[in-house]
């Protein structure tokens, strides 16, 4: 497998930044006020149009904020590869807005239905096996070669377990990083959703164990989010429709302690709150990040 020369992947230069997911209803407010956040994240596919109002708005946002480009449709784990046309559009958008980060998920999406190539329109889970690792690493490598930079790959929240995995997810992702030199976007809410849906004991403890098994150098970003509570025995859906949950904040504190001041994003995609409410969530993340490092600095001085 070919290797990229990551002269300036961006992550190291942006440690400790805090941002929010920017969705269309918040565009105007985001453009009208003095930025109190370090960056915004947008979904790549929402800006695949060649022109029009959304492109104009994105250019305005780019003038004001650094942008993290989060793809949701690359389908990096797809056995038939990442669609070339899709990749060209993504590469063009990256060239246009020069994002500080580029990311997508450890999932598959492209497939064949009868004679037709189809896209699942969702983030479909992978089995954690040598076979799917090979596919994922090859696709990540191809994407990185085409766009000329490192990407971050996000751990998925999933609702089914295919039962074919012969590796733990953390082993799988660690091997992916080793093979493709990508980074990891660790979605702390996804860890909790999975731990609640499929874990047999304390979800928070399971999520902390997951973090303990990930090499610190691999982590390039955290995602924080909340979800709609469900009745007992129902599966939690990762709907990003609430404020960051209390358990996610607790896990964030643990993650900061373990991984350092990693760039952090607050996601809120459905039932959007007021823009100021979203910013307050980001401020909380920034405060926690600051507090953790004050404490660590004191410990270093005392030592």
């Amino acid at each position, binding site marked *: 497998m070919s290797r990229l020369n990551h002269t300036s992947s961006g992550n190291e230069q942006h440690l400790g930044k805090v941002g929010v997911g920017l969705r269309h209803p918040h565009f105007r407010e985001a453009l009208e006020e003095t930025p109190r956040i370090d960056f915004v994240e947008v979904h790549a596919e929402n800006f*695949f149009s060649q*022109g029009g109002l*959304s492109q104009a708005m994105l250019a305005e946002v780019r003038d004001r904020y650094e942008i993290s480009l989060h793809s949701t449709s690359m389908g990096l784990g797809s056995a038939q590869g990442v669609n070339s046309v*899709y990749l060209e559009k993504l590469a063009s958008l990256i060239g246009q807005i020069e994002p500080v980060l580029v990311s997508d998920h450890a999932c598959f999406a492209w497939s064949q239905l009868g004679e037709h190539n189809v896209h699942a329109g969702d983030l479909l889970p992978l089995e954690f096996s040598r076979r799917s690792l090979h596919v994922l690493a090859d696709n990540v490598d191809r994407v990185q070669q085409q766009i000329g930079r490192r990407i971050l790959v996000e751990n998925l929240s999933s*609702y089914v377990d295919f039962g074919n995995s012969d590796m733990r997810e953390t082993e799988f992702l660690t091997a992916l990083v080793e093979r493709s030199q990508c980074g990891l976007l660790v979605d702390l809410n996804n860890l909790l959703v999975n731990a609640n849906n499929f874990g047999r004991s304390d979800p928070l403890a399971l999520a902390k164990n997951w973090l303990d098994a990930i090499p610190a150098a691999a982590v390039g970003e955290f995602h924080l989010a909340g979800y709609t509570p469900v009745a007992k025995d129902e599966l939690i859906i990762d709907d990003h429709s609430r404020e960051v949950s209390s358990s996610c904040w607790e896990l964030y504190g643990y993650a900061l302690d373990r991984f350092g001041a990693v760039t952090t994003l607050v996601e809120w995609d459905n039932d959007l709150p007021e823009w100021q409410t979203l910013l307050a969530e980001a401020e909380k993340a920034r405060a926690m990040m600051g507090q953790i490092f004050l404490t660590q600095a004191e410990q270093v001085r005392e030592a």
Partner: protein
Amino acid sequence: MIFSLECSAEGAASVTFNKGLRIYQNNLLMTAARALSLAYPVIERMLGDDAMVALAREMLRRTPPSTGAWGEWGDNLSALISSTPLINEHPYLADVARLEWLMHRASRSASPMLQVGSLSRLSEETLESVYLRLSASVGLLNSAFPVDVLWDAHQSNGEPFCLDERALASALRKQSGESFLMVYQQNQVAHMKRIPVEEYRWLVDVECGLSLSELFDRHSDFDFIHWLSDAAQSGVLDSLD
């Protein structure tokens, strides 16, 4: 299994698996319905949420998404509507859908920019090899119904939508019957306007690739100079090839 929206698995572990599978199936259906609603807001206002879900379900079966961008999916809703009983009761619906897709497409097209230098080709001695190129956003629609009036009546302008039936009836009395429409992008926004039949036929021939010489032969009474000025200013004309 995701696209077979009623499909489920069998076996001992199937209860948990099917619970998860249903989440993916439902996510797919709701995302598809939302994509249709964004591209076809007037159809949604005319038919309601439940109908959009039903149309999305059938659309997923006929033409599953294939590009990874939901904004590019749903171009054949008009054909789908034409194949359903909806068209018997509301014969204008398919044309409203065609108009909405043209608007949606225009809103996503490259922003038009007239290649001014190409206008010098008008001074060439023969116009047999001079061709008009329209901007990528331009779309044409001929309907037996006043779909522009129906479309206008179903705009919400950011407010909660409420159909003003009296205003609609009044507008339909003034502009009933066949309509000839042009859709285009100006100032980054899609626009639609009713055009005379002569202009419509001119534009159809331009899109067919007739040379200026052939256009002049076929449309001898058409006011080309006036049209050229308007088309250049409004972003309808891209260039002369």
